[in-house]
């Protein structure tokens, strides 16, 4: 008889092959893998978005002000300051002060949603207009247009401040869009986050059910007495689920990009790779969680416990920067937060791997953490 090796790839692949065969015979599960993503994406794609506040912006106020020359009571005008202070009291935005160029860099790397430049002659031009001269005061705004809700909120805040300062008219916006100036529809913008949600939902659901089906089938009483180690079993499962995960990622991206026509500004290969990496994170989470589910019902109940808080905290519905500080801290522990940044970065902002190193690293790190926890908690014998 063959000697028992401590680790055998044959056994791992036998497990992988067996699970894939089982799933291929399960028409209902295959249908779920296609229809759940389609339905969720359609619904969320249409309704995602929401009221935004505390959006960080940067103001570069170069306005030197204007002293009205002929006046008896020498009045000094400073519209740049007035608008800035008005914006500061507007809770839709959080105002930072700095140079326009540093603001633009900030918008590009996601620190700010917009940066505003008031020119040196801003007050002067506005005053001269009142004397009948045909001049326009120009405000330069460099804005992140990847989210129409946020864009509209920031612009509305600026408009309001200008209006409260000196009524309507006279100020021209020189709007410049970040990220290539592509204008996005609501669907384009919500799809990256929806991809993250759908991947979490479907991969967790299928993985956790597949795993728990095994541990509750009674087959473990035989498996425990075979050379198959718990580690090999988990690895075999993870491999099978990874293959399924790649398939599910393909379906989701197909629905998002081909059927809904979402825009991908960056590399499709990177998007696919990132999506598979995030799928793997969820597979390992499922492997870990399945160690604690006594039956399929418990397993299924675990899925919304993960997806609902992830939806709320990942910034999918409302930007994370608008949360209270302590909630923002929690958000940084939500894997979907990094997935959303990754998907939005690649799809809307055209980021390459260079801009997303930390997101990729963190997602990979969490995936490894979950697998380690799974290996540490897996049962390799009957309960004592």
């Amino acid at each position, binding site marked *: *008889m*063959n*000697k*028992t*090796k*401590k680790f*055998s790839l*044959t*056994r791992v692949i*036998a497990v992988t092959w*067996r699970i894939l*065969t*089982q799933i291929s*015979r*399960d028409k209902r599960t295959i249908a779920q893998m296609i229809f759940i993503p389609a339905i969720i994406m359609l619904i969320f794609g249409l309704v995602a978005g929401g009221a935004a506040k505390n959006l960080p912006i940067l103001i570069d106020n170069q306005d030197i002000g204007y002293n009205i020359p002929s006046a008896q009571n020498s009045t000094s005008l400073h519209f740049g300051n007035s608008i800035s202070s008005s914006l500061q009291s507007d809770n839709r935005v959080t105002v930072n002060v700095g140079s326009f160029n540093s603001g633009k860099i900030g918008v590009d790397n996601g620190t700010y949603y917009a940066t505003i430049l008031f020119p040196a002659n801003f007050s002067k031009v506005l005053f001269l207009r009142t004397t009948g001269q045909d001049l326009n005061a120009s405000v330069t705004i460099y804005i992140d247009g990847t989210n129409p809700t946020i864009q509209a909120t920031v612009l509305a805040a600026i408009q309001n401040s200008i209006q409260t300062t000196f009524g309507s008219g006279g100020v021209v916006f020189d709007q410049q869009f970040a990220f290539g100036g592509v204008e996005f529809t609501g669907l384009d913008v919500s799809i990256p986050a929806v991809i993250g949600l759908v991947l979490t939902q479907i991969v967790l659901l299928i993985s956790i059910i597949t795993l728990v089906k095994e541990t509750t*089938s*009674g*087959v*473990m*009483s*035989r*498996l*425990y*007495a*075979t*050379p*198959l*180690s718990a580690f090999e079993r988990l690895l075999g499962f993870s491999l099978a689920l990874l293959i399924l995960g790649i398939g599910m990622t393909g379906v989701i991206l197909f629905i998002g990009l081909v059927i809904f026509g979402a825009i991908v500004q960056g590399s499709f290969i990177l998007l696919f790779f990132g999506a598979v990496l995030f799928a793997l994170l969820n597979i390992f989470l499922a492997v870990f969680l399945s160690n604690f589910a006594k039956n399929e019902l418990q397993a299924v109940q675990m899925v919304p416990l993960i997806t609902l808080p992830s939806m709320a905290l990942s910034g999918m519905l409302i930007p994370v920067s608008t949360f209270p500080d302590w909630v923002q801290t929690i958000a940084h522990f939500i894997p979907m937060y990094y997935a959303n940044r990754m998907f939005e970065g690649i799809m809307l902002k055209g980021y390459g791997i260079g801009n997303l190193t930390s997101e990729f690293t963190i997602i990979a790190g969490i995936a490894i953490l979950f697998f380690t926890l799974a290996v540490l908690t897996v049962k390799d*014998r*009957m*309960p*004592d």
Partner: protein
Amino acid sequence: MSLDGATLSNLSTLTNEPVIETSNLVKIYKEGAIKAVDNLNLKIGRGEIYALIGANGSGKTTTISMLTGSLFPTSGEIKVLGQQIPKKRRIVSTRIGVAPQEYALYTDLTVEQNIWFFAKLYSMQHELFLKKLDELLPILRLNERRKTTISNLSGGMKRRVSIACALVHQPEIVFFDEATVGIDPVLRAFFWDYFRTLSKTGLTIVLTSHVMDEAERANRIGLMRAGKLVEEGTPQEIKQRNSATSIEQVFIKLSSGTVADE
């Protein structure tokens, strides 16, 4: 201890060196703190057909689970094929086969796929697997059912697939936990012929049963009650000692009033 005499006389019936040995084996489950197995001393020789009988909850399945290394004992020692269990269970696992009480099969796979999967876990060569499959399936009357999904089989058929999965890798010891339940008497008689043929080639068979006529076909019987071995010997010896005409009489006499929950 009353068992000593029996144990001594049984030693002479061992065809060969012991392949299973337990000493003072105890299992107390954490949940409920039940003493499922209480100071069990077993010695089973190579090529023996050994039947563990007893009422529900008498500790038969717990004993089998500990012998296969699937369940860790609370105290006591187990040696299977000369190796410490559970410490060396992975090494021993290639040389033993198990047909658990539940079918323990993948119900959404076919007969062949199930046997293939377990053969793979034992790193069996594919040619050898095919050869073994051609040998096992006709004997177990499953040849026509090769491509049938387990969920479409009757209870008795599932039982036979379970036996096939336990035998495919040519183990030296096989454990059948209630493995012939649900199999009709004609086929069961046929199985026993097959078991005897296998045991002559050196295969040790340890089985549990409620069916007393089945137990009588074993070389030796161990009767368990509340986790203890209360009687052990060849069917003949046991009947004589208890002045009974059948094992069933002995069983009723010795396990009366001990029927616990399943």
